[in-house]
């Protein structure tokens, strides 16, 4: 055995100490100390930098050099090259800006964890479970709300205190994807306008051909259950203030007949799901539904309808040969004679507050290009973000329907909705278990919808009291 003499020992510990010192300083190279300097409530106008609305894509800063990292939830569009196409087109105007996409599948949970470090990247889609009051802790204020709210739909979606932190990528209108041919063959001539009409239509499909699933819930995918919550706000009530202002301060919001009639309000939405399951108008075994397999099936006419946002239309059309059979109808609830449709922003683009000024500028230019020149919203079959752009064909049925966007809460009530929902453990638009419970009750018959709604109301009332603004 070699003698461990002093010299060798010192060499060894020296290497070890140096290695551990290096390990400590890997990674965070993008943060610059304090040079961002932007204060909440003001536009990104510090040190003379332009705000989002002042930028002109194509002429400003064309020689800007930056390497951006963009974290996105659209793993499908990353894989099929759509985003690469956008980057290539953007680089024609800005050859020195490179953008690298990173896709995350379980986006909402993973991204929230990543945001707790400051160097997650430069651009991302802002997770919806971050309270509006905390947007300024992570994201750069892009411009003042008053500067863009006349040109942009849904501009207030990720805005707080007069500043916009997120630009919507596209808009979703909430309706139901259906197969037009199946509906026609079953003898349905007009689109349903009330829950009972819709349930009767599903029954007609079942009578016409028992092998077709009139309504496919996609229970096993989880997020397809969460999707039902989006219909309970504007579309079911006609009130843009319902979700963020009225509901968190209302007791028993899930009650039947809350707006004066039984067939509107949140109760009506879950009523449709519960009754459809109970009457056997959905798939026989919810636990083994197959999301990817359901797309070609609705295309081929083996499924009558699915309750999904407008983003699904394009996917259903592309899944088989019968793209023309796919239609989109507004949700069958009529509020005092008018049919409304909830519309809202899909994920919004956000810029990391802790990245360099050059990267922030490059990121804003890319976002502006994506929003105004890339036709992303139109191609994805969504409601366009620019008010001046036209609606895609698939949303033709929404002509004459009032689009209701959830209004953001005023500053003193900001995040009240999220807090009440979390306290009640009924995270609307985020949690699937409460909707899964409705399906399970329909199958098992061990509790009725009224039992479930009573439970929800009790939890909600307790939460309203606990979170009431002082």
């Amino acid at each position, binding site marked *: 055995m070699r003698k*461990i003499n*002093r010299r060798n*020992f010192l060499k*060894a*510990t020296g290497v*070890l100490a140096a290695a551990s010192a290096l390990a400590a300083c890997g990674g965070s190279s993008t943060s610059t100390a304090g040079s961002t300097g932007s204060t909440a409530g003001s536009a990104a106008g510090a040190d003379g930098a332009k705000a989002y609305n002042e930028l002109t894509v194509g002429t400003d800063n064309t020689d800007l050099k930056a390497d951006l990292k963009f974290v996105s939830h659209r793993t499908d569009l990353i894989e099929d090259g759509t985003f690469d196409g956008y980057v290539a087109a953007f680089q024609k105007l800005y050859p020195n800006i490179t953008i690298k996409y990173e896709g995350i599948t379980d986006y909402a*949970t993973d991204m*929230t*964890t990543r*945001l*707790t470090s400051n160097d997650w990247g430069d651009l991302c889609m802002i997770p919806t*479970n*971050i*309270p509006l009051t*905390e947007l300024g*802790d992570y994201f750069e204020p892009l411009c003042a709300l008053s500067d863009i709210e006349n040109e942009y739909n849904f501009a207030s979606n990720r805005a707080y205190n007069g500043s916009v932190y997120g630009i919507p990528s596209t808009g979703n209108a909430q309706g139901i994807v259906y197969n037009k041919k199946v509906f026609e063959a079953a003898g349905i001539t007009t689109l349903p306008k009330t829950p009972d009409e819709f349930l009767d239509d599903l029954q007609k499909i079942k009578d016409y051909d028992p092998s077709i699933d009139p309504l496919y819930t996609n*229970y*096993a995918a*989880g997020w397809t259950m969460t999707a039902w919550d989006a219909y309970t706000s504007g579309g079911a009530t006609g009130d843009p203030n319902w979700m963020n202002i009225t509901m968190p301060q209302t007791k028993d919001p899930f009650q039947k007949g809350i707006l004066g009639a039984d067939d509107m309000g949140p109760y009506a939405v879950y009523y449709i799901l519960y009754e459809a399951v109970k009457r056997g108008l959905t798939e*026989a*075994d*919810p*636990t*083994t539904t*197959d999301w990817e397999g359901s797309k070609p099936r609705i295309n081929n006419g083996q499924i009558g309808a699915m309750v999904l946002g407008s983003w699904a239309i394009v996917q259903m059309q592309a899944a088989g040969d019968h793209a023309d059979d796919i239609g989109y109808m507004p949700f069958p609830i009529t509020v005092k004679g008018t049919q409304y449709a909830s519309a809202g922003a899909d994920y919004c683009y956000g810029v990391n507050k802790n990245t360099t000024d050059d990267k922030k500028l490059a990121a804003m230019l890319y976002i502006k290009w994506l929003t105004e020149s890339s036709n992303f919203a139109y191609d994805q079959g969504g409601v366009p973000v620019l008010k001046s752009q036209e609606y895609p064909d698939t949303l033709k049925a929404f002509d004459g329907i009032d689009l209701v966007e959830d209004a953001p809460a005023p500053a003193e009530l900001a995040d009240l909705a999220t807090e009440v929902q*979390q306290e009640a*453990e009924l*995270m609307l638009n*985020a*949690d*699937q*278990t409460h909707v*899964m419970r409705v*399906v*399970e009750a329909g*199958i*098992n018959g061990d509790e009725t919808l009224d039992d479930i709604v009573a439970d929800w109301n009790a939890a909600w009332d307790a939460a309203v009291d606990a979170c009431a603004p002082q």
Partner: protein
Amino acid sequence: MASSATVSAPKKRKSFSEYFHSMRGQQLIVTLVFLFVPLVLLFMFTYLPFFKMVEFSFFKMKYIGRRTFVGLQNYISVFTRKDCFHALSLSLYYMAGSVVQMALALLFATILSFKCKGSKFFRGALYFPCLICGISVGFIFKFFFTHGFVLDTLLSWVGFNVDKLPFWLRDESINNVVLVACSIWKYIGQNIVMFIGAIASVDPVLYEAAEIDGANAWHRFKDIILPSISTIVVLNLIISVSGALSAFEMPYVVTGGGFNTSTYFVVMDKIAHTDQKVGLASAMAVVLLLLIVIVTYAQKAVEKWLENRSSGVTK
């Protein structure tokens, strides 16, 4: 006689520098230096998060944002809520499953330890499921149990009528049993490999002696193998019980916790990540830890009692 270079009649106290250079000193220093990195990692990734979690359990907080101190409120909630302990009752299925798993593992291990055609192949085949990612396994099982698909087709070959077969994952009377069976399928390989290793350490002379005395395979197992590997069996039992209490993978991936398959961890995951009640979820985790500790001590106490009762039997 060993070298007496450093031993003189009046033993003088070595100075630190001399100790540093001596063999014992050098050995000690090398040991400490090599231990340093693993201990730092252990502290940073196991103990520190654990202590932080215990700290979190006394607060009302989300993952990001402010926190308020609430004392024991979270612990009281864990005991008064309907869903936490109901979810623990589902762990009983998994505990029963782990007993079945151990019995099957002992059976397979015993068979495979002695002359058996194709034993190498079967060892590999039985261990293989452990290596597959749990999420993929869960997805495949979803298709496996779809009505009219794989399992139903296999059963129809044996003579069952497909229409009479239950909905394996939907039927609340059997879906937990089905999930436990999936879990057994996935994890039995580990137990088998461990038992094969333990059985291999038994002195073969004992088998010859037993054969002369007229013992058959069952006697050989009960009186020679089982006592010899009893330490490993008990260890596996303890691990299985704590695994049963913290069952998560199968119910989460296969059914998402629906139709009454939500185990304790599935509930904890929803509370922590969707409802952002991190304090409550931390309290749930601490309660589970205490439960596992209690159960482990109970097992050891029973084991000691059994040993004392049957003292005198050769170990």
